[in-house]
């Protein structure tokens, strides 16, 4: 019996005016019935191109010089568009990265599943609707009948991804491609989706291609792992073998770059001097305003809480990690500390009281700097790097010598060549842009730098080098960091203390040693357990294991 999906010697080029660019080079892959193959690669490695090639969804400039893609022995590359359309969704399905954008916002969730059944299994609408309800129940959606009638904006991210998964499994396809299905989700939700994947994978005999940038995760959900680098499969091994015994150099580098919570990167915590550098005392932030009409009718709506009386402090030279899922208030706190959000309560900086945005004078702003998640959004695309870095120098002064020398020094500090000063942001890679953003934050010689998810848009290997740079700067300047992230493994490597936030509350604040010993709060435990650890052998997600049941929504104290 042939493998369900068999790709042999497949090559893909993208034509461009400057000649063809090779996206995939002599790919050989095979997935059998009931098997899950993980495909790991960084951005630009060709992993998504491979998915589009399998789905026969290639852009107009794609050229296929050779090779074959077979589904249960049938060649796909020679099929007509009509034949492909009849096959997609029925024999081969796909689950996408972001359920928020892959569902049509103006159609009910049930309709988006039922239409597949109507199209491929020739059911009547009534039959399709009933079947859809059963599918919703099967993927663990509570109240499936109601969920069928809901619209995407009325469901959570996890629920939406369950709908997408139900749709992919609707016609019992032979093969399903999972393209980073948990990347857009919160840690705990992601874990639940992984459990669902493992369960469905075991129940059905589907052949899965699980695409991800996360080696640790893939090694735990897949039977075999293929590592793709610059369009080539550089290594293909069993999931257990890839971590314990990698052969390829690139794989080894990739593994080394994966944050391992067992390997500390930063030094010991600074000895507390008695006076914390920054102290937040009962800082609260509320979003939104009550509409005039609601006030008029006497229905003052409760405002959305961003932070609820958060109190914490950062010592000079300390790295405080803040973790929590999206919407937990991590970034809200960062914005309050930098004066981007109005807040109540008070902040103390070096003993000085800051009661509101008006108190944040030039000295405060010079000392408290922020680096944002997306350098693309935080660097002005129309300014050269020199202009970007000159702004804080002009504003805060303090640099002696000519301006371009100061810019060159800043670039050198973040290990970028001095001639980058003449470039525009789009001429830099993602990691280089983030280095520029870091250099800009350090231009005023701040004592606290707030890092708001600064590595989450970067590839693992780039992330590792950015983190290394941060630690290097911290050792040199004694700067304190407020390191906001959702990556628990990373924060365990570098933070001295960790603050855990949940729905606007600070639920737990603990030393790194305490965290290793086992946190007390249920939510912190759930958060840590949900993350796959990159240690060969000690997997905590096992294929086919039934999900431990839904994690209750409230983790309130």
């Amino acid at each position: 019996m042939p493998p369900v999906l068999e790709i042999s010697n497949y090559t893909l080029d993208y034509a461009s005016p400057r000649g063809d660019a090779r996206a995939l080079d002599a790919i050989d892959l095979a997935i059998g019935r009931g098997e899950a193959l993980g495909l790991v690669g960084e951005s630009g490695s060709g992993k998504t191109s491979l998915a589009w090639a399998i789905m026969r969804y290639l852009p107009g400039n794609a050229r296929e010089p050779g090779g074959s893609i077979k589904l249960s022995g049938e060649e796909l590359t020679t099929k007509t568009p009509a034949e492909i359309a009849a096959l997609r969704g029925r024999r081969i399905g796909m689950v996408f990265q972001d359920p928020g954008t892959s569902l049509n916002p103006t159609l009910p969730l049930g309709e988006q599943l039922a239409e597949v059944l109507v199209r491929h299994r020739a059911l009547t609408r009534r039959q399709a609707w009933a079947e859809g309800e059963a599918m919703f129940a099967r993927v663990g959606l509570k109240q499936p009948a109601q969920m069928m009638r809901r619209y995407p904006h009325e469901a959570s991210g996890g629920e939406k991804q369950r709908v997408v998964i139900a749709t992919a499994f609707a016609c019992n396809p032979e093969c399903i491609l999972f393209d980073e299905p948990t990347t857009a989700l919160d840690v705990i939700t992601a874990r639940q989706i992984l459990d669902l994947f493992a369960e469905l994978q075991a129940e059905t005999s589907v052949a899965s291609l699980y695409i991800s940038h996360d080696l640790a995760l893939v090694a735990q959900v897949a039977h075999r792992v293929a590592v793709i680098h610059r369009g080539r499969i550089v290594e293909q091994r069993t999931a257990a073998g890839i971590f314990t015994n990698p052969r390829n150099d690139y794989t080894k580098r990739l593994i080394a770059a994966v944050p391992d919570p067992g390997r500390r990167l930063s030094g010991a915590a600074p000895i507390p001097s008695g006076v914390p550098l920054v102290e937040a005392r009962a800082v609260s932030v509320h979003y939104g305003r009550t509409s005039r009409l609601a006030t008029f009718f006497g229905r003052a709506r409760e405002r959305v809480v961003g932070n609820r009386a958060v109190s914490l402090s950062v010592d000079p030279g300390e790295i405080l990690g803040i973790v929590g899922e999206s919407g937990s208030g991590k970034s809200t706190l960062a914005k309050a500390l930098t004066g981007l959000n109005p807040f109540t309560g008070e902040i103390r900086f070096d003993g000085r009281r800051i009661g509101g945005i008006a108190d944040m004078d030039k000295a405060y702003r010079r000392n408290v700097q922020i680096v944002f998640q997306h350098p693309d959004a935080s660097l002005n695309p129309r300014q050269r790097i020199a202009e970007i870095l000159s702004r804080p120098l002009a504003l805060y002064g303090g640099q002696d010598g000519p301006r371009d020398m100061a810019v060159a020094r800043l670039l050198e500090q973040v290990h970028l060549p001095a001639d980058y000063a003449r470039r525009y942001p789009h001429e830099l890679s993602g990691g280089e842009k983030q280095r520029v953003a870091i250099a800009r934050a350090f231009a005023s010689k701040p004592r606290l730098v707030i890092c708001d998810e600064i590595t989450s848009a970067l590839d693992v290997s780039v992330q590792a080098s950015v983190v290394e740079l941060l630690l290097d700067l911290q050792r040199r300047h004694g700067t304190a960091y407020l390191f906001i992230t959702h990556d628990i493994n990373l924060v365990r490597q570098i933070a001295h203390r960790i603050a855990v936030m949940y729905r606007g509350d600070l639920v737990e604040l603990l030393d790194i040693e305490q965290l290793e010993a086992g946190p007390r709060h249920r939510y912190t435990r759930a958060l840590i357990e949900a993350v796959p650890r990159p240690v060969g052998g000690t997997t905590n997600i096992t294929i086919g294991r039934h999900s431990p049941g839904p994690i209750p929504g409230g983790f309130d104290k």
Partner: protein
Amino acid sequence: MSLSYLLKRCGLTAYTLIVVSLIVFAVTQVLPGDAATMLLGENATPAALAAVRDRLGLDAPIWVQYGHWLGGVLQGDFGTSLRTGQAVGPVMVEALGRSLLLAVLAIGFMLSLALPLGILAAVRRGRAADLLVGFVSYIGVSLPEFVTATLFGLLFADWLQWLPATGYVPMTENPASSLAHLVLPVLTVSVMLIAHVSRMVRSELVDVLHTDYIRAARLKGLSARAVLLKHGLRNALLPTITIVALDVGYLLGGVIVVEEIFALPGIGRQLIVAIEARDLPAIQAGALIMAATYSVVNFAADVAYAWLDKRIQYD
């Protein structure tokens, strides 16, 4: 649709109308000279002026006059024309009816061409059909109405003699002749509307066709037709509803030139006549009726939009 959303929209519409009535009333108050001097002319005796002021209630405080006027309007009484001595309400409503007939025909005709053209241009983006639609659209947008009106008049009325050049015949009198008289005005105003609505549909549809959910729909194996009609168009046409509602405003007040050229006695033309004669009650009635119609149409558009896109009601 939630009731609170409907109530909120109703409330906003009512609020708009009150503000509009205040502005309309205030503007006519600040015009030099009052109704009495306009009525009797500049050489009237003070006694005659006083008598007229007394009869029209012009000596009462402004807010009393406003209340009086608004009370009348709410009962359908817009006052008496200073020019003709007839009630202005029925005259304006009749003129509005003619303008609305033009508007409805123009929008219907426009949509029947603009939607297919926009869709065609989006689906065949960058190819000959798209470029042709774009080229013709830009010509339509850039030609002023009086040019198109004159060209159409020359072609269809003068040279070909297919249609009457100007005039208006009521529907009730002779439907065939009525429609024949409306063809040229409808064509003229549609040219510009077709151009900008088809551009709008094209750009919205191009955006929608690049979304993840369209890709997801294709990868579910739906036919190209189902993807376009069910997933694409619905989302792409939503903003068009708002645009069409805004066009109604243009069709009521902005087509005075067209009404003038084709001698179509619509509300725009009535208003011009009223302004020239400084016929205050008629100006007030015309402006208020126009604003009310515009508000109601936009209210309907908001409701339709919210019904089609459920996310809207959460704003």
